[in-house]
């Protein structure tokens, strides 16, 4: 896996993510969010997990981003006025980041480079989903159904 691609994708992803976190306009933030997730998907491709990458794009860019955008539209009147910035969070974030980086660098005994790996085909994943992971799959199905119904119930017009 080429370092060029890695650097490019990393820069893209992190920049987009940072923009998503800090841009004053919610819409731009949402779009950058989608972009950063495309970047994450690209990472997955780079790491040889194509299926996951596709699912990532599919779910986040296709569905979640659209959902966010729709929510922004429905709460439009509240979007314009700026809610300000909570600076206390920055300190915490920096602390956590420092901690994480320290931990990562401290733990040296990790595989230096990736062993060559046979690409994980969709067929294998599907078979795994249907054999070893069938119960998680069912649970996720139930969860999604519940989430769907719950979301519908939440946004129903309450009768007055």
């Amino acid at each position, binding site marked *: 896996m*080429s370092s060029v691609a890695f650097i490019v994708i990393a820069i893209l992803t992190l920049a987009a993510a940072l923009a998503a976190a800090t841009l004053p306009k919610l819409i731009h933030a949402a779009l950058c969010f*989608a972009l950063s997730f495309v970047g994450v998907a690209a990472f997955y491709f780079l790491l040889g997990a*194509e299926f996951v990458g596709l699912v990532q*794009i599919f779910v986040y860019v296709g569905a979640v981003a659209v959902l966010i955008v729709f929510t922004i*539209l429905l709460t439009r009147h509240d979007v314009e006025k700026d809610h300000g910035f909570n600076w206390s969070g920055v300190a915490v974030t920096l602390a956590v980041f420092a901690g994480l980086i320290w931990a990562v660098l401290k733990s040296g005994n990790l595989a230096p480079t990736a062993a060559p790996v046979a690409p994980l085909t*969709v067929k294998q994943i599907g078979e795994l989903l249907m054999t070893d992971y069938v119960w998680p799959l069912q649970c996720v199905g139930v969860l999604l159904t519940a989430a769907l119904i719950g979301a519908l119930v939440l946004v129903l017009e309450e009768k007055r």
Partner: protein
Amino acid sequence: MRGFIDQIFVNAKQQILSLVAGAPDWLGQIVSSLLNITALLVVFLTLFALASVWERKILARIQNRLGPNRVGPFGLLQPAADGIKMLIKEDIVPARADKVVHFLAPILIAATAVLALGVIPYGRNMTPFAIDGGILFFFAVGSTTEVSVFMAGWGSNNKFSMLGAMRAIAQMVSYELPLIITVLPVVMVVGSLTPDAIVAAQGGYSFGVLPHWFVFTPWGAVAFILFFVSGLVESNRTPFDVPEGESEIVAGHMTEYSGFKYATFFLAEYFGMFAVSGMAITLFLGGWHAPLPFLEFVPSYAWFFAKLGVLIFVFIWIRGTLPRIRVDQVMNFAWKFMLPMAFACVIAAALWHYQGRRWAGALWSLGWLVLVYMALTRFLDAGRKFAPRTYRYAE
């Protein structure tokens, strides 16, 4: 000889690549990708030009007119003239618009359309980007169209654009489910998400005449129709062109676009149309396979583009025939009919498979589909009352 003509483009690409054989492999990859992309762009831009003029002429015939016939022979150069006109038009950007978003929207939408075109097998060994799970890629890319439409609507900061964008997103999201679920049966039956595998699975003929295209199985036929209708919606074609209904909201999310950006939207719409048709051909119409055994001497890509042309003609035909559908009707149709039918198709495919993929299976799945269809129509008619018209998605 036949093989030569069939593989001519593949061989040509190999020749060109052999020139950079010595270079590091990343260069080779880049070159081959570039070749693919250029081929795609050339072919489909030409096709776009042809299709635009073709559409206008066919619509004219349907409406008992002559259509463009001045520029060039039979008006074949009409698109060139249109292109020039578009290019030299002034590019207006509204003052209050969100400049960046407004600028990015058409690029993104066109780019995604081209990307979607990349995974379709156009002929034997002629898949530009043969990735495992290409189907998924196709839909993943296609699903980003909504974001770009939204960008267009929001960016141009205009009431009509916003309404159009919201309508577009609403109906696209609604119709993406049937669109994808109607693909499931095919994927289940073939057992692969790779377009080439799916096309390969549709080779061969029963009794030497009936090709093994999935459209010739009951579930396949129904799934194909559902897929095609959803494709109409996804590419915002009549009768589902509510988002850009000129008569209600000037041109929907394209209202504030002019000149080349507008042309880009136009191009994106056509590319979307091509992409959906190509996917439909790959999934249901046997890809580049010939309809009859003795016709196989015709090169595969020729068959693909012939089928593409037929589907485009159907698109145009429908546009010339049907009036626009109301928004709430569109949504109801999606959620109350298309989605259940799509799921029924999945089950029908399972029946077909477990009954041995023979006549018994066909009968079973047919019976099941008919059953579901009856039930659905009964249910919908029961619930139908002709309420006064409401703009639920445009308040």
